[in-house]
């Protein structure tokens, strides 16, 4: 295998370049719907209804749709709500999942397998199945229309336990042994030794979790009754009236609803890939 065939190698590079271009083209096609909605957000109502359709808006400085959208619905409030809920649930679910992940990966105790299966089963059963009883529970403790109520199903994510356990299993035990001998308590080990080592997994989890919370729909639809407790997704749907759709405004709202997630993704995407790869290597 030491002998190299220059022709073969060249052909391979050609092939790979060709593939690269194909993937670029398809990748661009994946973006078309997003581009289309962004373009639509800058068009006026008559422009939208013009036939044959036009690609580019007459003016990219036409922010009327965004202005009007905020005038018609308290989108600022929706954003605030979504962010609040996402942050509360992110903090809570990360803390809980890191603790449990550590326990599963590095501490010996009885019924470990059983507990892990129990938590995995929560991961398998979608929250939608539990919407009714959870809603009634929230109603009974008076958390309807509150941030805690909105965040409730997201305060804990079984997926996080799974992810962190996978990741932490890959950390050599000697780090923990060394820290124990160095005089660190379990909490301090977790904080000073483990957490810095699982940064990629944390980043992956933060993206996935934030995305999940931000994009929740059924639960906030049920639990946030008043407009001032709507999240962005619910607000977006409320925005499209029953009998009259203002597509220019819906497009603007849709675009805005995606932006925060897009930012987070752009900022953390390197870590997301790394985190997933690293937790993938540990079976």
């Amino acid at each position, binding site marked *: 295998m030491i002998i190299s065939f220059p022709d073969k190698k060249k052909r391979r590079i050609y092939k790979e370049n060709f593939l690269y271009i194909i993937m670029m083209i398809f990748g661009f096609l994946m973006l078309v719907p997003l581009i289309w909605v962004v373009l639509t957000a800058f068009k006026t109502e008559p422009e939208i209804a013009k036939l044959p359709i036009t690609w580019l808006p007459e003016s990219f400085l036409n922010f009327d749709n965004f202005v009007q959208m905020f005038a018609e619905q308290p989108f600022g409030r929706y954003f605030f709500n979504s962010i609040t809920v996402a942050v509360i649930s992110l903090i809570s679910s990360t803390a809980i999942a890191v603790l449990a992940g550590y326990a599963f990966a590095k501490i010996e105790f009885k019924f470990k397998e059983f507990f892990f299966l129990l938590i995995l089963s929560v991961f398998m059963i979608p929250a939608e199945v539990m919407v009714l009883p959870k809603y009634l529970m929230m109603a009974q403790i008076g958390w309807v229309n509150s941030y805690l109520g909105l965040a409730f199903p997201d305060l804990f994510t079984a997926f996080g336990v799974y992810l962190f356990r996978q990741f932490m299993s890959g950390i*050599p035990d*000697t*780090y923990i*042994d*060394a*820290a*124990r*001998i*160095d*005089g*660190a*308590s379990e909490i*301090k080990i977790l904080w*000073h*030794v483990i957490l*810095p*080592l699982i940064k990629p997994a944390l980043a992956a989890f933060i993206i996935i979790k934030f995305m999940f919370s931000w994009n929740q729909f059924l639960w906030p639809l049920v639990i946030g009754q008043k407009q001032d407790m709507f999240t962005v997704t619910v607000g977006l749907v409320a925005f499209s009236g029953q009998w009259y759709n203002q597509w220019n405004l819906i497009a603007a709202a849709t675009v805005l609803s995606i932006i925060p997630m897009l930012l987070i993704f752009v900022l953390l995407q390197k870590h997301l890939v790394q985190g997933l790869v690293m937790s993938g290597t540990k079976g």
Partner: protein
Amino acid sequence: MSTVRLSNVSKSFGNLRVVSDVNLEISDGEFLVLLGPSGCGKSTTLRMIAGLEETSSGDILIDEKVINDDDPKDRNIAMVFQNYALYPHMSVRKNLAFGLKMRNMKTSTIAEKVNEVADMLQLSDLMERFPAQLSGGQRQRVAMGRAMVRTPKVFLFDEPLSNLDAVLRTELRSELKKLHMQLKTTSIYVTHDQVEAMTLADRIVVMKNGKIEQIGTPKEIFHNPKTLYVAKFIGNPQMNLHEMQVKKINNSIFLTASSLSIPIPKAVINRTNTSYLKDGATISMGIRPTDIFINNAGNKKGAFKAKMILTEMLGAETLIEFGIEDLNFKAIVEDDYGISSGDLFEVGMNFEKIHIFEDTT
């Protein structure tokens, strides 16, 4: 002023007994080496002393105080790991300071101690580097420093040199020895490398299958192995061992195999348990390669006819392999006198240095 004592310590994982009834006393300032092949329970014993594993039964005492149920952090011990376990996300300085920080020491005191240790180990130029940026030897030294900085009662070493190449290992071994002479901290050192054990230890504990085979100074272990196992394990090349029959003729004892017959001097009988030196019994006879010589000087005493099989030049010395009757022996000699394989020659043995073991190979 620290002693460590293990009293009837046992450890089982499920049904598997990895350490059984270990009794051990380590006096203050002593450098004790636990020696044995992997899986012999030496690491587990060390980890029990550290508090990383718990004993299944028996007591571990430091300064005559039972510490079975103390957390590692409360035992005032320090440990150097095989892979060093330096925290990859902390600089050398932070790695050194971590143990002190966990004990809530004042920042200024920490800095002082860290610098002191860094000076001693010549780490001062590396303080801001991360473990990944260090060579193996440097990492090893940081790991040492991390243990030293807390001035613990006991140092525990878990094969700390095994990840290094041969040259570095020798170098660091003597450094370690010097450090110990300087600090005089009670140390327990686990290794499977007999040379390390020999060079470092005040006393060696040879372990097998979770049990102590023999405890003794390196000299005792080498010159007077108590069991066949210890005899085999210590010394390189291995001691020549052969099954032989005991033959009592008058008051003399001979060991025989086919037509070979070796007379046993009184000195050997005196240091051997005579209960198994019964007439007709099968025992193992051992003699170290260094106690065999080529009989070229005309010294006829204890001379055997031998047939050369192989000679290997080791440098100053030569390793020869030859057969006497149908028994194969190895010897380290200063000169092979140009004997080549197939040649017949005579060898002599220092019968005083013969070892006799009850169990057979």
